[in-house]
């Protein structure tokens, strides 16, 4: 069943070329196949999650309830959050890790290829279960992606149990994926590829994987306690038996805050790969980038209760979490400044990956600014659970995580499929998205500040204008992403796209660009020499 690649075995290509048909994908142990599976899965989930967002936005187009019942609205909000976070962003990043890490560190494949396949195939299973809850009696989970007790325990719909086990499965998948990344990075680097020579994408993913291993089990613990509270008579989240509903929030956010950095660190790595390439100038402050990423990850474990300023924590707790949260601006600032310094005195061109990377830096920073505002507890009493928060996290998530992914796809697509995408179409995609994303999410700052609370299907008249703008933007944004699919389809399967060179980008540096385009099925069958 298995074989070893021999130095002198010239048949290994046919031996290890992709199998044919469905089993190629179902049984694959190849990091590129698995990477593609992850990426397409993520894109599908992104469209589904986006569709839920469009239901939300359609209902919020004008005041009054026009389309959906409030209980269904809550299901849409919940599923939108869950699908985007666990179904779109995380798998997209794992897909990129699969494709890129072996190529970047000079390895033939991931360290544990069979487990790699298992991590992937758990995902469709988990999301099949989660989405099937839409068709169950009592509907899908309706308590927000944060599923606070007791709304999710005593008051959750029957499908909550399917949700709980679905989360367990996603957790197993993420943990295995993370173990694979860490082991690959620790053990599969080509000779000479020391830690401080690794591309930043590898570094950020290494740290992301560490975060995943630390926090996904805690999420599993949280849903397990939920399950026993629901059905086995425990009272972890019920004061009558000596528990505390707020304890749920502590456990959740101990996972949840590092989780938001899980959703941004790989994008940092992507920007750190793309900006030097198109500035034709080495990344400024490589070492400080590594330390900054590590500091962000370290701090992420001690800031979680900034989501809970209004829960009535003791004053000392509020002060501690406020100060720690503010500190995160320092290493993040270092990263932003380093990117600007990389561009400074460079010789820049603005192909699609660079455009998305620049937009990422700017819009993420804007999201970071609102994050710092939220961190100020007395002001957060006003912001909390309003659309200001929604604006904040969409600025760090859409132009952050999603633009990062899109930039990565444009940047590495020629390496993956051997063909160049159409620069003209990609530029249209970019400008369309950048306008739509701001039209959708910028007005939310205003409606939030003016007092519109989150997770409501209807709102007071005073917010009507902002909501209408957001809704129009949202539909535009959605169309823009369908257009992205069209560009991808045309490049990969359209047949007419021009062939890409190995180097692809004039300024690109790194091991992946030494491989031909498309990259061979097994990236490096022999360890490359790293200077």
């Amino acid at each position: 069943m298995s074989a070893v690649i021999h130095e002198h075995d010239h048949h290994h290509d046919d031996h290890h070329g992709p199998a044919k048909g469905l089993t190629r994908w179902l049984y694959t142990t190849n990091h590129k196949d698995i990477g593609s599976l992850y990426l397409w899965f993520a894109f599908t989930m992104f469209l589904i999650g986006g569709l839920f967002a469009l239901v939300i936005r359609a209902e919020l187009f004008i005041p009054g309830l026009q389309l959906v019942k409030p209980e269904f609205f809550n299901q849409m909000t919940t599923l939108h959050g869950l699908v985007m976070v666990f179904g779109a962003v995380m798998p997209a990043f794992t897909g990129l890790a699969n494709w890129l890490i072996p190529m970047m560190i000079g390895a033939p494949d991931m360290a544990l290829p069979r487990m790699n396949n298992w991590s992937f195939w758990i995902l469709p299973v988990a999301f099949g279960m989660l989405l099937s809850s839409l068709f169950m009696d009592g509907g899908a989970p309706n308590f927000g992606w944060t599923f606070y007790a007791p709304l999710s325990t005593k008051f959750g719909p029957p499908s909550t149990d399917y949700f709980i086990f679905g989360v367990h499965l996603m957790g197993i998948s993420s943990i295995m994926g993370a173990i694979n990344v860490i082991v690959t990075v620790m053990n599969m680097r080509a000779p000479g590829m020391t830690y401080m020579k690794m591309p930043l994408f590898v570094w950020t993913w290494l740290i992301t994987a560490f975060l995943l291993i630390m926090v996904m089990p805690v999420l599993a613990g949280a849903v397990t306690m939920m399950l026993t509270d629901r059905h086995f008579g425990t009272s972890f989240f019920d004061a009558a038996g000596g528990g505390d509903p707020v304890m749920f929030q502590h456990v959740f956010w101990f996972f949840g805050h590092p989780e938001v950095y899980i959703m941004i660190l790989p994008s940092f790595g992507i920007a750190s790969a793309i900006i030097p390439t198109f500035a034709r100038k080495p990344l400024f402050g490589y070492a400080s980038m590594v330390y900054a990423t590590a500091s962000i990850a370290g701090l992420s474990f001690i800031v979680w209760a900034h989501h809970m300023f209004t829960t009535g924590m003791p004053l000392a707790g509020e002060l501690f979490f406020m100060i720690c949260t503010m500190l995160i601006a320092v290493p993040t600032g270092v990263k932003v400044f380093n990117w600007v310094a990389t561009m400074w005195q460079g010789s820049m061109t603005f192909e699609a990956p660079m455009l998305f990377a620049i937009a990422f830096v700017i819009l993420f920073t804007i999201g970071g600014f609102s994050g710092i505002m939220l961190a100020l507890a007395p002001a957060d009493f006003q912001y909390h659970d309003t659309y200001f928060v929604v604006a904040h996290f969409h600025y760090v998530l859409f132009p952050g995580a999603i633009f990062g992914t899109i930039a990565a796809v444009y940047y590495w697509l020629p390496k993956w499929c051997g063909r160049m995408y159409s620069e003209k179409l990609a530029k249209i995609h970019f400008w369309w998205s950048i306008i739509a994303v701001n039209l959708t999410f910028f007005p939310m700052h205003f409606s939030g500040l003016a007092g519109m609370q989150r997770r409501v299907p209807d709102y007071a008249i005073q917010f009507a204008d902002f909501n209408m703008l957001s809704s129009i933007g949202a539909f535009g944004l959605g169309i823009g992403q369908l257009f992205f699919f069209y560009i991808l389809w045309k490049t990969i399967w359209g047949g007419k796209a021009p062939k890409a060179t190995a180097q692809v980008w004039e300024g690109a540096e790194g091991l992946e660009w030494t491989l031909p385009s498309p990259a061979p099925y097994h990236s490096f069958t022999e360890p490359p020499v790293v200077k």
Partner: protein
Amino acid sequence: MAEQHNPNHYYVPAQSKWPAVGALGLLLIAFGAATTIQQSTGHVQSGVPIPGWLILMAGIGTIIFMMIGWFGNQIDESITGKHNAQLNHSYRYGMLWFILSEVMFFAAFFGALFYARNLVMPWLSGDDVSTHDWLWPAFENSWPVLTTPDGKTSTTQMLPWGLPFINTVILVTSSITLTIAHHALQAGKRSTLNLWLFITVALGATFLFLQAHEYHEAYAEMNLTLHSGIYGNTFFMLTGFHGMHVTIGTIMLIVMLGRCLKGHFTNENHFAFEAAAWYWHFVDVVWLFLFCFVYWF
């Protein structure tokens, strides 16, 4: 096939059906478990015409099938020397990081225990004046919480110096005996290995037996149950998940014993044995924490 140890060779496994089987197994388990629970509440989910436990069992069966197939595959590859040193390293790192994730799973429950004990109890009993005076005026702080704040359940404390202490001794001893077995394996003393490994398995089984006895006593005589408020909750969740891990560890050791008897493993190459041993030590360390914070202090 000694040349596999040449670092210039990378090992890449061919396609395998086991991961896909495993995903199917997990689906059946998760769906079956949720359906079983739902059906037990009287809400019968439409569209699931068969009892959930059947699905659950099918899932467990599938996973066992997968494990036999996948591990069998691994063992074959290992014995025929297809694994190289690098792959062995990957397995080791993988196992260690997996154990870290297990540590964090227990950390969630220990976190709940400390939070409830050091923050919630004082709040309910008067540190938080309004909460106490208005909502739980009769509640007094103590750990363990023998009467819940609503006064509806009362229970008794599980004292550390009886059975739990004996169990501590058993587990610590088993870690030592396992280490002896490991040294014997490295030294190539096969019969010593088999003996000490057998003793370790026996100790593990004894631990489980005593634990079951303790549970029985708690339920039958002490009214200490999963339902008896936060003390019972944390007690049973922590010891229960620990017990589950001991069970898995014991099964792993039994498999290792079987393989040792069959003459698998070499003095240098015995990753599976080491992984099982690490797991066992991890379970042991968790127990020491349990003994301290669940039973003792």
